[in-house]
């Protein structure tokens, strides 16, 4: 309980710091939303010009893109900016000072650095989902609502867990920043229907780099569209992918921390 109140206190401190420059924060939200919306605009041009992309029409793609950016933002606000600088923490020896504190270094980094610059992502994601859902004729029930919410939480967990695994590599390899670049290359692929890619890439995005569960699998499952390779297991896979990756990330983080010998001084 005491630890939880400490984390909440760290979050409050960070929020107060970031809210000192509100106009700057707002402009940042608008700019980032514009950056994403521009890329989505080009995807809209393709989908409307050619009617379908990978068998998906624009409202279905819009739902997937909204889901993708929202799931990412919810996971990244606790992890990305904080863990992107992990190699500097290791190289400069700053990580050593985190290890002697009476809280988990990961939790300290995540909560003390909570990044509220994702307001634009969240607004864009919610807006696109809200626009797309009424056009798709989904047969709503308590179960489908629960499925939507659970798979969104799973996408957020998947993001946080994957970024944590990459950051943990810095404890062993000292450099891991370029791995974030590779993550984002696959992450960009995961915002298209997987059916446009060749089978080996589909397999990669559903197994070794499981970013297919970020948006494609959950939205396909919700819309009742066929999912290659996993078929009827799609709704369950969409919900379980995030929690499973969290367990993997915890194991990787602990293993890397055990092997950590320090690089700076």
């Amino acid at each position, binding site marked *: 309980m005491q630890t939880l109140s400490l984390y909440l206190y760290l979050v409050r401190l960070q929020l107060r710091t970031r809210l000192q420059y509100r106009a700057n924060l707002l402009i940042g939200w608008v*700019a980032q939303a514009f950056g994403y919306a*521009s890329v989505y*605009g080009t995807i809209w*041009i393709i989908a409307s010009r*050619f*009617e379908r*992309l990978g068998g998906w029409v624009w409202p279905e793609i819009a739902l997937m893109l909204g889901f993708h950016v929202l799931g990412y933002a919810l996971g990244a606000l606790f992890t990305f900016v904080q863990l992107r600088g992990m190699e500097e923490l290791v190289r400069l020896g700053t990580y050593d000072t985190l290890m002697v504190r009476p809280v988990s270094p990961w939790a300290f980094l995540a909560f003390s650095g909570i990044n509220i610059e994702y307001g634009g992502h969240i607004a864009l994601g919610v807006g696109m989902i809200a626009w797309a859902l009424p056009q798709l004729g989904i047969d709503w029930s308590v179960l489908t609502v629960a499925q939507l919410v659970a798979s969104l939480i799973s996408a957020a967990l998947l993001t946080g867990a994957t970024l944590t695994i990459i950051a943990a590599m810095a404890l062993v390899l000292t450099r891991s920043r370029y791995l974030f*670049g590779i993550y984002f290359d696959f992450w960009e692929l995961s915002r298209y229907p997987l059916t446009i890619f060749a089978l080996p890439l589909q397999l990669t995005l559903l197994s070794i780099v499981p970013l297919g569960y970020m948006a494609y699998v959950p939205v396909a499952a919700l819309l009742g569209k066929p999912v290659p390779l996993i078929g009827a297991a799609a709704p369950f896979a969409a919900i379980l992918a995030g929690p499973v990756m969290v367990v993997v990330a915890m194991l990787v983080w602990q293993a890397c921390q055990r092997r950590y010998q320090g690089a700076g001084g």
Partner: protein
Amino acid sequence: MYLALAVAGFRTEASFRAQFWFLLLSGVLNVVARVSIWQSVFQHGTGSADISLPQMVTYAILGATVFSTWEASQLVREMGADIRSGNVVSHLMRPASYPVSLMARLIGGRAHETLLIGLPVAVVMGAVYGFQPPASLGHALLFALSVALSLFLLFTLATAVATIGFWVMDTLALDWFLRGTLALFSGGLVPLWFYPDGVANAVHHLPFAWIAFYPLAIYLGQLDLMESVVTLLYGLGWAVASAGLLALLWRAACRRMVVQGG
């Protein structure tokens, strides 16, 4: 001296071996994504009467390798960091123009990316997916000129955007606005001939179209030789205008700059 800076830019990029492999993988994934989109819509969708799939595959491969706008984003971020920290002063004290030095470094970085990453990726992915040669020798020559014009426009526009950082101090938002504008209006991801007519009519006249769309349209022979020359001249006009805008902004920024501390 600027040549030395360009060489330094090339060597700086070449010195990070791990980054090299990452950029290679990144280039391959970028091409795979773009080509997969076009294969999907041409093979399973309505296709297009204006352009064939092999032409679109070539457009995608060149767009992902030769017309990367990554350095523009890098330039805005680096210049923003220099403005914020005050390090920009050390550049201004040197007996060289800071914007021209930046351009020299950008050219060096781009040369590295094109020769050591873009070219191998284009050759390998071209062998996998198929790659079309330029429409004619004349188109090839005009394409080479248009690449130089594209680089100049990208640099001047990115530097002009980064210079606004002297007034707003935070260039993160500027970087995102630039990225969004280039994604939507340069035609690097989607050629302008697929845009809705009303939008395309306007975007065809914006300077961003010369950064990727027109060079690729010239390469593929979508414009005949005379149209290509006229288009290049039009683009040259934009290059002069954007250089003028940068010079004005730069002069105004230098006049308002106050440095505290040392």
